[in-house]
């Protein structure tokens, strides 16, 4: 029997509703993609940027702060009639530009908050809040600020991450800021902190409606850790002041710890110029400056050391026994070394012992010393002697990175036997390389390495790796390598005559650095006048003070500053005086240094092009 039509209809009804239930079963229980889509619709991940860690100087004074700034935002739909002129005068923006920005925001979205102006100072925000423009609000952010405006190259700057940095570390997302140079780069992991995320729910118009799951999945941003660096802000500022207008560098180290007290490179830049809205204008200008303000000469330049290297040769001679402090050599003055290789000298008493040879910086004397080191019969040949010499030189930290805690250190260059074998096709002798005796020739050292030499002499034979960070908040100590003394191959006892020579250079007649003398400070120093292919001689000075139990070792290098005593020594002397006594009692010397005119045709030729 065929079923009645009412039964067929009932089956039909039940079937269609069953189809609906099966479909619901599939949508709601089998297919999971809709849950994901619903989350994509409604959840907005709002990144919470942590304030970046601050940087203090060794005395606890801010040298880098996180400044609060405010972005002006606008929600077009909430904007009521307002006095555009008043708003413009508060934020300091031309009225046409403001109108255009507001129109653009309105076109983009009627309901979403959009940035109208970036990085307004707190004063402007307060004024805006007082007036209360409906539909406008401000959003907090932090920016770097530099109360002292010093140490641009040492501190470095931060900027938006680039493609390469994004690829390297998945922590960063487009638009994040990252340390680009200096301490900001070297200590990025510590300073940046950890981003947090707040998960908000938005409606169909993108308007935030509240936090997701009452904030259960939110993470709090962890602020960056503050760093105390070894820099003495006063000293650093004074060093930059004295170097202003010159091209060169100052590196000051506390010998007993290896802490860098000042690391100045000139020309430098105001670090505030690399922050905020002005960066786009300032960066190209600074970057194209032919004197290269972004080039940190204190660690990146490699120069011939000049006469300061006589210290090293003298110490090697003493240790090797080929030199005794009382040995005297004749100096023919301008006639130069007997070999006729044309190492000239300047007028001074002759003959001299080693101590006075250091005082007068006699070239001839140290030619004999190097010759004796290389031709030592013990090693059976100049080349073998040279190998020994090279090992000694390297033990002073030359020719390699010192493994400091900041980036951009350079190796410098210490020639080896192979260097000359190649250059002279294997045929060379002590005379060929004799300019090494006075720190010329193939040698290349960085100002940092020279300052390290000063610290080594001050310590009578050992040094601590120079470093810029003294303390990281929340940690008991910095890396262990900075607490470990590094000994040179020269025994401590041989340093005393050298120190005496350096003391005499400052304090005795005919001393090359008498200009550096400060009564009562017992400054010891060695001048250098480095010949170079770019123009006038570089002026360099290496010193420490006081003589016993030294507190500061310093290396000053002034490009084309001529004699070491002319420009480098007065700068070092003033800095030592400032550091040890807290004040400078020689205003005329300060004036002398500041008014010093040095021409830099090598750089400035490029500028005029």
């Amino acid at each position, binding site marked *: 029997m065929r079923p009645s039509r009412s039964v067929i209809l*009932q089956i039909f009804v039940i079937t269609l509703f069953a189809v609906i239930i099966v*479909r619901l079963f599939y949508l709601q229980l089998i297919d999971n993609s809709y849950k994901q889509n619903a989350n994509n*619709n409604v959840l907005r991940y709002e990144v919470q940027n942590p304030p970046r860690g601050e940087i203090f100087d060794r005395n606890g004074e801010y040298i880098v702060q996180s400044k609060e700034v405010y972005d002006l935002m606008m929600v077009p739909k909430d904007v009521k009639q307002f006095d555009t002129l008043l708003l413009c005068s508060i934020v300091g923006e031309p009225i046409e530009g403001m109108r255009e920005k507001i129109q653009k925001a309105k076109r983009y979205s009627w309901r979403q908050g959009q940035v109208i102006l970036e990085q307004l100072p707190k004063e402007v925000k307060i004024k805006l809040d007082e007036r209360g423009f409906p539909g406008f609000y401000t959003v907090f952010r932090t920016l770097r600020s530099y109360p002292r405006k010093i140490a641009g190259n040492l501190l470095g700057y931060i900027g938006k991450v680039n493609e390469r940095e994004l690829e390297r570390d998945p922590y960063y997302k487009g638009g994040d800021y990252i340390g680009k140079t200096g301490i900001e780069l070297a200590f990025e992991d510590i300073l940046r902190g950890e981003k947090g995320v707040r998960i908000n729910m*938005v409606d169909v118009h993108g308007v935030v409606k509240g936090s997701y799951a009452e904030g259960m999945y939110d993470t709090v941003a962890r602020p960056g850790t503050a760093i105390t660096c070894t820099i003495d802000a006063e000293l650093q500022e004074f060093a930059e002041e004295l170097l202003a207008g010159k091209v060169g560098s100052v590196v000051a180290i506390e010998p007993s710890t290896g802490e860098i007290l000042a690391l100045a490179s000139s020309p430098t830049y105001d670090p505030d110029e690399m922050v905020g809205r002005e960066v786009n204008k300032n960066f190209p200008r600074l970057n194209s400056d032919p004197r290269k303000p972004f080039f940190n000469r204190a660690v990146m330049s490699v120069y011939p050391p000049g006469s300061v290297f006589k210290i090293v040769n003298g110490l090697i001679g003493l240790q090797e026994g080929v030199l005794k402090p009382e040995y005297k050599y004749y100096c023919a003055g301008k006639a130069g070394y007997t070999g006729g290789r044309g190492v000239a000298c300047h007028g001074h008493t002759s003959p001299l012992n080693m101590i006075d040879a250091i005082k007068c910086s006699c070239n001839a004397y140290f030619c004999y010393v190097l010759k004796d080191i290389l031709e030592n019969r013990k090693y059976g040949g100049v080349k073998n002697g040279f190998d020994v010499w090279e090992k000694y030189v390297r033990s002073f930290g030359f020719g390699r990175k010192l493994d400091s805690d900041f980036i951009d250190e350079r190796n410098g260059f210490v020639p080896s036997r192979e260097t000359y074998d190649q250059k002279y096709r294997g045929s060379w002798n002590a005379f060929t390389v004799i300019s090494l005796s006075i720190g010329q020739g193939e040698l290349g050292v960085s100002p940092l390495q020279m300052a390290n030499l000063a610290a080594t002499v001050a310590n009578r034979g050992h040094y601590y790796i120079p470093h810029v960070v003294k303390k990281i908040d929340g940690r008991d100590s910095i890396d262990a390598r900075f607490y470990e003394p590094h000994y040179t191959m020269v025994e401590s006892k041989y340093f005393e005559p050298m120190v005496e020579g350096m003391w005499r250079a400052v304090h005795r007649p005919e001393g090359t650095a008498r200009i550096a003398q400060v009564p009562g400070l017992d400054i010891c120093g060695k001048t250098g006048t480095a010949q170079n292919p770019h123009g006038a001689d570089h002026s360099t000075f290496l010193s420490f003070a006081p003589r016993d139990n030294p507190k500061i070792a310093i290396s000053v290098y002034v490009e084309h500053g001529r004699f070491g005593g002319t420009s480098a020594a007065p700068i070092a002397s003033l800095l030592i005086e400032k550091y040890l006594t807290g004040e400078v009692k020689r205003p005329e010397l300060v004036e002398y240094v500041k008014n010093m005119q040095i021409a830099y045709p090598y750089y400035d030729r490029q500028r005029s092009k």
Partner: protein
Amino acid sequence: MTGSGQSNIKSPNIDWVAILIYLALVVIGWVNIYAAVHEDSALSNFSMNSRYGMQLIWIGITMCVAVVLLLLDERFYHMLAYPAYIVGIAVLLLVLVAGKEVNGAKAWINIGSISLQPGEFAKFTTALAVARYMSRYNFSITSLRELIPLAILIGIPPIIIIMQKDAGSALVYTSFLFMLYREGLNGWIHVFFFAFIALFFMSIVMEPLTVLIIIIVACVIFESLRNGHWKQKIIYLAGLALATIILCSTITFLGGNISVYTTLLICSVLSLPAVIVYAYRHRLRNVYMFIALFLTSIIFAPSVDYVFDNIVQPHQRDRILVVISDEVDLKKEGYNYNQSLIAIGSGGIAGKGFLQGTQTQFNFVPEQSTDFIFCTVGEEWGFLGSTVVVTLFCLLILRLMQMGERQRDPFGRVYCYSVAGIFFLHAVINIGMTIGLVPVIGIPLPFFSYGGSSFLAFSILFFVAVRLDAGKRELLRT
């Protein structure tokens, strides 16, 4: 009269099960309207001016109307059927002239501050009039002469509604086929009806050749289901295929250019005499109906593309394409469809909880308190909640059918089945569109969708059925 009416409300004659189902749907519906329009902020207290407040007022009004409807004598409805129908038509025409346009449809009329949608009430008046007409003494559903006035009766309201540009509401009148099937209308009409719906969608998505093959094979299979003779049908189909291949390759070989579709079409039409011979020899009259179905199908199918591309409105075309095709931009024309599926699909087994649906609370779903109210159910109450609602609708419709079956008088039966059909079509199409089974057609979900007119109209449909049912049982008892 009034006295006996009084007793009706208290009497067990009223189908309290149906009323309970109805009340459950009303309560669940209102809760979901509340969730759909609810704004999560401290400022918004319960407000009578909001949609859920308005709906609550309408529910109150409806309950008063329901009591009155239950109190009235059943003969009153019988008597009122034609006048009500005429008034309904008149108001529909009035709307056409003086109505208010909402969302492109001129289907609203303002009475004071209240907007009413007369189209919703026309369903009720039409159902009453149809019941009255079909309960005439000596009415015969097999007589064409009797059917023509019936067709006119059912056809006038949807024609006016189409003129109001509210195609969705007009479509509802096809739900009378539900009742007509029960009343014994020739089954072929339903066969043609569903065949054409299927053909419509097939012609949009499939190649003409595929559609043609499906038409031929479907006709043969259904004919065989009725009449047997399977072996002959297989021979017929094989012969048709062979003839097509031979003809097609011969013409191509001779340098002609003919498509397989055209060849098959020619071969199948040429085979019709053989089919007629078969029908005559076995005295199978229904074969002629299959031939008619086949012929109308092959004419209808190619015209679908033309109709679809040129007559169907672009937004309607998009709504259809969204369901049957994958090549639709879910950000533009597919947005509603997609957001609706996301809302329901993300509900999971038990839902996100009352007022916790992110899709509905944050307005991602369009029209979520009216046409897409089922999204709120799906998202906040999950599979379990949705199943409860679907089951309640199913039970209500089955109950209405049962109420119709137990009437002796065709008036009550026809009316109950009409109501069941109307609810059925609304529920299936509305829920079907939110879950992507049916193209988006803007018709409300009974008792759920926000809107006073539709809520009141659906309730009137329902309570009159309950009243008629109660009256008949009273008669049976005494």
